[in-house]
């Protein structure tokens, strides 16, 4: 337990020591991003509505520079680490919700898939520290 906590602290220090990015908008420490649905391990038949939960920050449109608010990005089967100094990529594995959406219809081929949420700022950059959800695994039948 203690080791994990210390490792967490070390990571935090390392992150804050990283070179200043053009963005790096601050996020409150208690910001919490999570999946309302599905949950880790959910087995799903066909397409599904993916619901995004966010606590202690607000959802706004991409482009809006309001403090403590951002918009959702859904990462599907992404293994590359998140680059805090670059805009969150945009492709078929990185879905953007710049209109302030808090849910999305997702259709995935059968099999195991990972899902993760990342909150982006007005210019699609991750916050500092990054506001990311737990990476969950779902199985599509």
């Amino acid at each position, binding site marked *: 337990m203690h080791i994990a906590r210390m490792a967490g602290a070390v990571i935090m220090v390392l992150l804050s020591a990283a070179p200043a990015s053009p963005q790096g908008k601050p996020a409150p420490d208690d910001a919490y991003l999570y999946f309302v649905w599905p949950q880790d391990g959910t087995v799903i038949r066909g397409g599904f509505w993916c619901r995004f*939960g966010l606590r202690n920050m607000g959802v706004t449109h991409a482009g809006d*520079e309001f403090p*403590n*608010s951002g918009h959702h990005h859904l990462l599907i089967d992404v293994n590359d680490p998140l680059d805090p100094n670059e805009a969150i990529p945009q*492709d078929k594995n990185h879905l953007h919700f710049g209109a*302030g959406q808090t849910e999305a219809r997702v259709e995935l081929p059968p099999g195991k898939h990972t899902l993760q949420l990342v909150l982006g700022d007005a*210019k699609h950059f991750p916050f500092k520290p990054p506001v990311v959800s737990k990476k969950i695994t779902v199985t599509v039948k």
Partner: protein
Amino acid sequence: MSDTERTRGQVYSIRGGRNGPPPDEAPRRLAAIVAADIAGYSRLMGMDEEGTHARIKRHRRELVEPTIAEHHGKLVKYTGDGFLAMFDSPVEAVRCAVVIQQSMIGRNASLPRDQHILYRIGVHLGDVIVEPDDVYGEGVNIAARLEGIANPGDVFISGGIYEQIKNKLVCAYQALGDRQVKNITDPISVYRVLPDPSALMKARKGRRVAMIALGVVMIAALGSAIGLFLWARQQLLVAYPVPPAAEVPKTAQAPPPAAPASAPPAQPAAAPIVTPPPANAPAATPKAAAVPDAPSTGANAPIAPLKLPAMVSLPGGTFVMGSNDDSSEKPTHRVTIKPFAISKFPITNQEWRQCVSARACDYAPVGNDDAPVANVSWNDAKQFVEWLSKVGQKNYRLPSEAEWEYAARGNTQTKYWWGDQFQSDMADCKGCGAAYDSTQPAKVGSFKSNPFGLHDMGGNIDQWVEDCWHKDYQGAPADGSAWIDKTCAARVIRSGSWKNGTNYVRPGSRDYYDTGVRYPTHGLRVAGPP
């Protein structure tokens, strides 16, 4: 108002198909009504009339209007301190209300608590009388009553709305039971919408408020302590001025200790208005031709002639659109294209800046003149083609998705325009070859042209087309026209960018993005008459 007319038509047919409207009767229809007002409006106005008014106007422009439009609603009117909106869909109505409330959390976050602007929102599904600029009926009154009993920052919905959305929109709903409201005979079942289901637990414990208050007090105390410390230090440092670089931002973040109540509200640093106008909003187009861009051409340079994009005329023809490489590209289908012209390159920063100088394009790009313009939304792209048509005296437009693919294939039917096998150095993408800069797109025309003489039809910069996004080609038009729905939140992008992998370089590859949102890899090319 086409909606109104359609409803009218249906009403007549029920009445036996007699011609002519019944006199003096406004059409009735079922609608989800959203009523909102600001809690403590009089108090806010009493505290700072001008500041509050300015903030509310900003919220209307930047949040209320675009959010209603995005959810396919109609703003009926502004009331003194709130608004009334109408939606066809209860789901969209509640979604809109939730987005507004959540956005307000972010906007209030940086302000002291007594300056928070909090909306109370009521949503009700009811039969209403629609007039050109207002709606009437019990449905509206009930929405207004729900709004009246809602807590600041909350959305209250009626049972009718709840029944429609309970399985569709995952929020938590707290049943508040039947309530008797003023001047409405029957009690109304009321539900409170909790956008975050876990808030249901918290809603029952009132502890948070106390915690937040404690936090605010502590931050304020800390802020004043730091301020006092720095002030004292500054006094001492007058003789030895060392820039206290690290501390300065801290003081800026801490709330000013004991600010006078009448001070103007601490607005978040004047952020540029980046919310693009809705797609069909008329762009502020100039009457005259382009004004030269003085900074880029030098102070005493002569007036630069208008530079129109180089166009390539393509013959019409029939081709097979789509592929079996991705589910979004199926089914493959034959499409016949009429002759048209398309720009040889993506639109460059230089071309785009002419539009900015003419005050017809809102977005001012950064980057080299010969690089493709990037970070433009579909709405921005429409502003550009509208301006270009005016100054170019020709109907410039975005290509349809079918035209784009036809142009990209250049009479080939292979996976890439150069063959079925991937080849290095043919396009600008991640994994496309040696000469690759991961930080920015290449200048236009850096790579070989396709058989039609077009450059960057795949890779380098994503390109908006006219079409609404459809997840595959079921029901796609076969005449090469753009596939448009009555409303669409997302439009198609083609080509892939320098950031994408080799799979995106294929002429069949397609993706989409929200219409009004800018992203750094999105640009465009234009189409026109042959």
